[in-house]
């Protein structure tokens, strides 16, 4: 039963990653691409982490996995902010 829930979570997470990648390829400008990347990819990572935490053997491993997700969340939020601000200051919309 737990395996089934974990598999559903992981597959949903992969779906979000796929949507984020399609957004990266298809959206018109930098800011909307950043938006797709940070939102969709981090949610996908959270779901994949939750799924693997369920499959993990011990509570310690599960907590470590969730801490990894929080770290990636903080780092990607900060770098998205920096990239967007830099692009805004330089004024190009590539």
């Amino acid at each position, binding site marked *: 039963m737990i395996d089934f829930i974990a598999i559903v979570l992981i597959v949903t997470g992969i779906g979000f990653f796929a949507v984020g990648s399609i957004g990266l390829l298809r959206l018109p400008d930098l800011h909307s691409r950043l938006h797709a990347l940070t939102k969709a990819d981090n949610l996908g990572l959270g779901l994949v982490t939750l799924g693997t935490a369920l499959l993990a053997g011990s509570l310690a491993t599960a907590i470590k996995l969730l801490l990894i997700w929080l*770290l990636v969340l*903080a*780092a990607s*939020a*900060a770098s998205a*902010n*920096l990239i967007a*601000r*830099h692009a805004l*200051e330089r004024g190009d919309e590539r």
Partner: protein
Amino acid sequence: MNALLWTLLDLLLAAMLLGLGWAAVATRDLKRGVALFIAFGLLLALAWARLRAPDLALAEAAIGAGLAGALLLAALRDEPRHEKPAAAHSRAGLWTLNLLSVLLAVVVAWALLCALEMGEGLRLAGAVTDHIGQSGVSNPVTAVLLNFRAYDTLLELAVILSAVLGVLALGPARRGYGLPGPVLGGLIRWLVPLLIVTAGYLLWVGAHAPGGAFQAGATLAAAAVLLRLGGVDRAGLPAAAVSRWLLAAGLLVFLGVGLSLAGLGYGFLQYPAGLAGGLILVIESAATLSIAVALALAYVGGWSRSGSTQPDSTQGGSH
């Protein structure tokens, strides 16, 4: 069915590695090439994990992708042009090069396949597994690095020291970065202590799980890179006098342990049974500090103007 899925994963990973490697070297824009190289390094870490080499995966993600990418980006910042010059090669020269490359690839692939087939020959892995009980640690890679082939690691520390001495001799530090905004500042304030604690953990856990001095040193160097990007020109390193000692500490401690053991009658770097674990930890701690200071100085580019944390750039944001 299981084997088929694993093979599919391997083929996908291999195809992406080749694609990213090709794109990283073939693109005209150097900044894009470096970004692709960082992604290539991270995928390579996945390949190491697939090939049952977790120590290598940690080291590749930290050093091969992270620090190498940071070094290349810092160098790119000083480069006036970011586009590769259009190469003026003759058609005949280009085709000769392509032909020779294909021939080289075929020959090396054939040699590799022969080597893989002879795999049941003499292997050192058996010897390592037999003697790992006496080595003082239970992680086989750490045992090989710091006990069975300790001499090689000693010489490697000397090579790193020589490279950093070269970097230090070639000029002062690169120009610094401006003061960070609230987002970057907050991130640095949280990440740097976390990185220091993680480095200590990696050093300690290297004895019985994947980890060790190199990964720990690289994590500390990553903290130094973060500090430098946040406007601290000295990247958190102590004053030059102390940094010089830290740089040499790994090599000195390693040599010191080896020579004292030789003086006491055990032979150069032959650890006595029972003391091996403790000696390895002492050597690894000194090596971690040395590697961290070496990689941080290599990133900064040289000795920075002492004591100054004021940036010399006039723009407000970071580049």
